[in-house]
């Protein structure tokens, strides 16, 4: 598959986000025999989004576990496996199904290092396909990231493109702390070149400037990065910078703040409800840290303070290019 053509190097392949995640998992499993994958339908089926396709065939049933239909059990037993020296990678099939595991994640997984005075570590990864835009039934389109960023002891990251999917899953697995990895399910089939050599990759905790601009900064992660890039592209009159947050907790403040200091304007975009959402933290932090650099208040674009709607209303609920640019307009009208 390797190609040598133009800017595409020998270690680059065109992969969908799902496939890139699959390749990353495969790399991690080849690299460390203690890595085990567990979840509902991850084995024979290869996951409902095919992220684990072929892994059980290649690594066996003891390393790729079709679990009972019990999310609390998936995370709880992952904790036990980690205590025994394994590096479990759990799949929660859809965002809305993580809540039966909430106790295990927030009360158990997040706290164990501290409770053991640093003697125990739990290198558990929890992968969660999240977000809407696929016309799905209830509980299949949610963005629960703020519940987890609110919980000390967890690292929370979100990938937005195939390259980061490939990289971040491997970095998450090698991370000694528990990592929640949110995967933008509506972007699973987006394809892009992926550099299979990790040496130049940004570290797990780093935000990246996905598009440079001068006039306003858009802060986004997961599925909204692409929406923001499209908005920036569509706006002919202003130069819009897009920062892909990537790591929600810990937040790479340096990258975020230096962008906002440069542009003086900031709009935060996510699918989750605006009220008490992760954007509230970004807005507050940016305001605190670079108040005198701001030309306008930090604005937020996101979902409403309602349960996720039936799919025929989701286009209203989800931020789109127009709503992002409307917020950009408002920051200039200040």
């Amino acid at each position, binding site marked *: 598959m390797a190609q040598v053509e133009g800017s595409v190097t020998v270690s680059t392949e065109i992969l969908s986000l799902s496939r890139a995640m699959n390749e990353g998992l495969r790399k991690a499993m080849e690299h460390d025999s203690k890595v085990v994958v567990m979840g*509902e*339908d991850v*084995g*024979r*089926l*290869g996951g*409902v989004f095919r992220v684990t396709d072929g892994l059980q065939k290649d690594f066996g*049933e*003891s390393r790729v576990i*079709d*679990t*009972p*239909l*019990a*999310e*609390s*059990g998936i995370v709880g037993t992952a904790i036990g496996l980690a205590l025994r020296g394994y590096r479990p990678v759990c799949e929660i099939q859809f965002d*809305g*199904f993580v*809540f*039966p595991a909430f106790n295990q994640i927030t009360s158990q997984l997040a706290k164990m290092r501290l409770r053991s005075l640093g003697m125990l570590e739990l290198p558990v990864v929890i992968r969660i396909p999240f977000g809407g835009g696929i*016309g*799905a*039934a*209830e*509980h299949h389109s949610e963005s629960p990231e703020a519940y987890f960023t609110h919980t000390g002891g967890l690292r929370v990251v979100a990938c937005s493109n195939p390259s980061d999917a490939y990289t971040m899953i491997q970095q998450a697995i090698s991370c000694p702390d528990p990592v929640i990895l949110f995967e933008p399910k509506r972007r699973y089939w987006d394809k892009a070149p992926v550099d299979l050599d990790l040496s130049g990759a940004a570290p797990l905790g780093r935000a990246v400037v996905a598009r440079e601009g001068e006039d306003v900064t858009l802060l986004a992660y997961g599925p909204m990065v692409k929406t923001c890039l499209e908005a920036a592209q569509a706006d002919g009159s202003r130069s819009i910078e897009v920062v892909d947050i990537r790591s929600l907790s810990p937040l790479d403040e340096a990258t975020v703040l230096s962008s906002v200091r440069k542009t003086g304007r900031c709009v935060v975009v996510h699918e989750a409800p605006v*009220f008490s959402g992760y954007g509230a933290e970004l807005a507050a932090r940016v305001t605190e840290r670079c108040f005198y650099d701001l030309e306008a208040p930090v604005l937020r674009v996101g979902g*409403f*303070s*309602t*349960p996720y*709607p*039936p*799919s*025929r*209303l*989701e286009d*209203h*609920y989800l931020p789109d290019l*127009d*709503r992002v640019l*409307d917020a950009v307009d408002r920051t200039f009208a200040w």
Partner: protein
Amino acid sequence: MTIDAARGTPRGTVAESPPGLVQLLTPAGERVEHPDYEIDLTAEEIKGLYRDLVIVRRLDTEALALTRQGELAVWPSLRGQEAAQIGSARALLPGDMAFPSYREHGVAWCRGVDPVKVLGSYRGINHAGWDPRKHNLHLPTIVIGSQALHATGYAMGIQRDGAEDAVIVYFGDGATSEGDLNEAFVWSAVQNAPIVFFCQNNQWAISEPSERQSRIPLHRRADGFGFPGVRVDGNDVLACLAVTRKALDGARSGQGPTLVEAFTYRMGAHTTTDDPNRYRLQAEVEAWQLKDPVDRVRAYLLKSRTADQEFLDEVDAEAKEVGADLRRRCLELPDPELDELWDNVYVAEHPLLADERARFTSYLRSFDEVSR
């Protein structure tokens, strides 16, 4: 040490019916007796069950077609499970309360829910379409097993009311692994709640065979919780009716919960987004085809001369009409209004939601102004 000690025998084709299975009508349509379960139905009642089976299959087929044509976003087919649903739901009295999962279209039919109202959530226009109190059928529950605790609490309410109603809760083989379901077993047992746990063991939780959920037959789980468990031929509508009726009578008369495991098969995909060819053999599907829940009743009706071909033709014609009517009315279902995003989240207007509604409505109007 082997990892798969609990896995049981490999799956290929289906073995003969498992031991202990309550059956009153064989796959060939022969009436058989069971020492613990009797059923005495009039010809009209049996014909009524047949009509239910044929119609819900037709409704399901129509919904599948609507999904393939893009009119529904997704559909979880009940095909193969008609007898489990019709038999159990026809055992309910009007005052009994049923808590479904998301595949119980046949139960909805028996509870008098207009079939088009079942389609709303799959068309993406609402989350649930019927009045749960009017039909004594609760909303569908997608998060697996959660409804078992709701059902248990409802049954505790019946006890406190001194009423003689009972509760039935539907779930699948996969749900038996969830904490909520096992907590419901514990609660209902120690409360002696008037509830029937009706497990449709359709053998597959998406791609995972039931051996992935349990090392023992599911109905025997009840032993450990301290109430009876029974395994019934889930493709035998008469047996499902008899077993459920007895369990409901027991609940009503203060004997507490029963677990009914209806041994059946999901003939289709988990939902229209699933591809079962990735994980199960066609031979298994074909073996279950021979145990079809509708065919055996038809065979019985003809063999016993309970009904003639003319009746069967009438039912087919009616089912066709009900299916066509469902299709027509599905296409006429209105899209939801924007305001439905914020309506009904709270009992009264919530200031934050009111603000969101006002701002977003004004935002949408700004497009009209631009285009004018």
